[in-house]
């Protein structure tokens, strides 16, 4: 394997629900895996298996109950994300590590293009606008949508826009949760193509996927989560077939 970019060691997460008499829910148990630099890893499994919990625990949106997450920076330094001061973690999540959640949360009343421009890691507005417009095109979002508020977009458009917002930051490590869910076949193809291009450019990716065709088109490796545990791990033979 190439140099690792992310190492997950015995990650466990138990939720304690105080409002329900301290009921404990063991959502993740001893999950370990490594993501190589430039690798595309698909996280699959049934609904409720713990896939989203896994990526959110990696990102520290959920506090791990046990285990650790090590992120290797481009300069070779290794950072324990679960031990990093919050202010440094946020800086990392705003730059090198990009997360695309299932749902879009943005400030209302700001035009889509402006939101994208603001997401750029630099302050060169003309350059950011050109990059944002290029992403709009790559995601096949109508040009007329640039001036609209994302709240007025369709579900599929919001999903693509959400991906675009994160891509504006050009993350080294991309973590996406169901990027092709609820998309029609044509739109799904657009998203898969874009993610394939990112992969070709060297972006390391962890993607929670239900979509078998997306797994086969994009993933180098697949881990299957079942009842919070790593149930299987294997290499994926990639297909070049377009999604029907």
């Amino acid at each position, binding site marked *: 394997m190439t140099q690792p970019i992310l190492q997950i060691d015995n990650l466990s997460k138990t939720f304690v629900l105080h409002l329900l008499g301290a009921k404990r829910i063991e959502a993740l148990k001893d999950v370990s895996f490594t993501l190589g630099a430039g690798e595309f890893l698909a996280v699959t499994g049934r609904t409720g298996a713990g896939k989203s919990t896994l990526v959110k625990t990696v990102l520290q949106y*959920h506090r791990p109950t046990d285990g650790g997450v090590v992120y290797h920076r481009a300069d070779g330094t290794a950072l324990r994300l679960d031990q990093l001061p919050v202010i440094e973690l946020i800086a990392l999540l705003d730059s090198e590590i990009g997360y695309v959640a299932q749902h879009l*949360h943005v*400030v209302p009343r700001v035009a889509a293009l402006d939101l994208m421009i603001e997401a750029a890691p630099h302050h060169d507005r003309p350059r950011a606008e050109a990059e944002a417009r290029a992403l709009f095109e790559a995601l096949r979002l109508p040009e007329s949508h640039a001036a609209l508020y994302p709240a007025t977009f369709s579900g599929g458009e919001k999903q693509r826009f959400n991906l675009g917002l994160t891509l504006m930051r050009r993350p080294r490590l991309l973590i996406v949760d169901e990027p092709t869910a609820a998309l029609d076949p044509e739109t799904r193809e657009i998203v898969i193509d874009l993610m394939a291009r990112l992969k070709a450019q060297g972006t390391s990716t962890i993607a929670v996927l239900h979509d078998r065709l997306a797994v086969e088109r994009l993933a180098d490796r697949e881990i299957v989560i079942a009842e919070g545990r790593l149930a299987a791990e294997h290499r994926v033979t990639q297909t070049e077939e377009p999604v029907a």
Partner: protein
Amino acid sequence: MATPLIRAEGLSLRHGRAPCADGCRALDDRADTAVCPRCGAVWALRDVSFDVYPGEIFGIVGESGAGKTSLIDILDFRAEPTAGAVYYGGWHDGQRPLHEASDEERRDLRNHALGLVYQNPRRALMMGMSAGGNVIERMLAAGERHIGQMRARAHGHLDHMELGDRMDVVTETLSAGMRQRVQIARALANRPQVLLLDEPTTGLDLSVQARTLDLIRKVQRELGLTVILVTHDWGVLRLLARRAIVLKAGRVVESGMVAQLMEDPQAPYTQLLVSSAL
């Protein structure tokens, strides 16, 4: 790693009768109340610590009575901490506790370093005065005297708040959302480094709320402001802030990344607040 612009260390604020000799240790076992069960002293804040970094929007969350306004009062010099201290990077390089500042230095800090926006605009604005007058009044308090320059700058601040055409309109006649924006323009009058927002959108219609949030965000980015946002609204918090503390009965029950506080609240009180949010 960046240096914090504001540091609060072990802040406590006690009201009422003298405390127990041991500093009301009995309260340590009573997380649900700010009133000492033995002596009856009220601890509006108890051992509150946090750091705010330059250019960030930092959230302070909690229900009524949690101590949010007491915290603002200390930051704005309207209350003296019973124990602990606040340090501000713009004064003696953050090495001296703010409450050691003289009256004159406090006035100077309030006029130049700090802008405060209340939930109720009536607390800050003179309703019979024009919108522009309310902004200019802050400049006069800071020692400016050139009326032409002050008017031009006040117009600029109101324009930022999309109220450039209301410069000479009497504040009383403006809508609630507009008054709130006049208040923000007034808070920005002397280009402060830090903006304290105390429930800035509570009580506003949803569309007005969205517009106000957008303007706060815009002005924060453009001016590079450091913002302390006091709110009980998780929606507002998520849209504006990245880090926050949760206060209950004067104490910090939890702190962290806003996404984590909302997705995986640890403390029973935070779980209650998050699960109660609409």
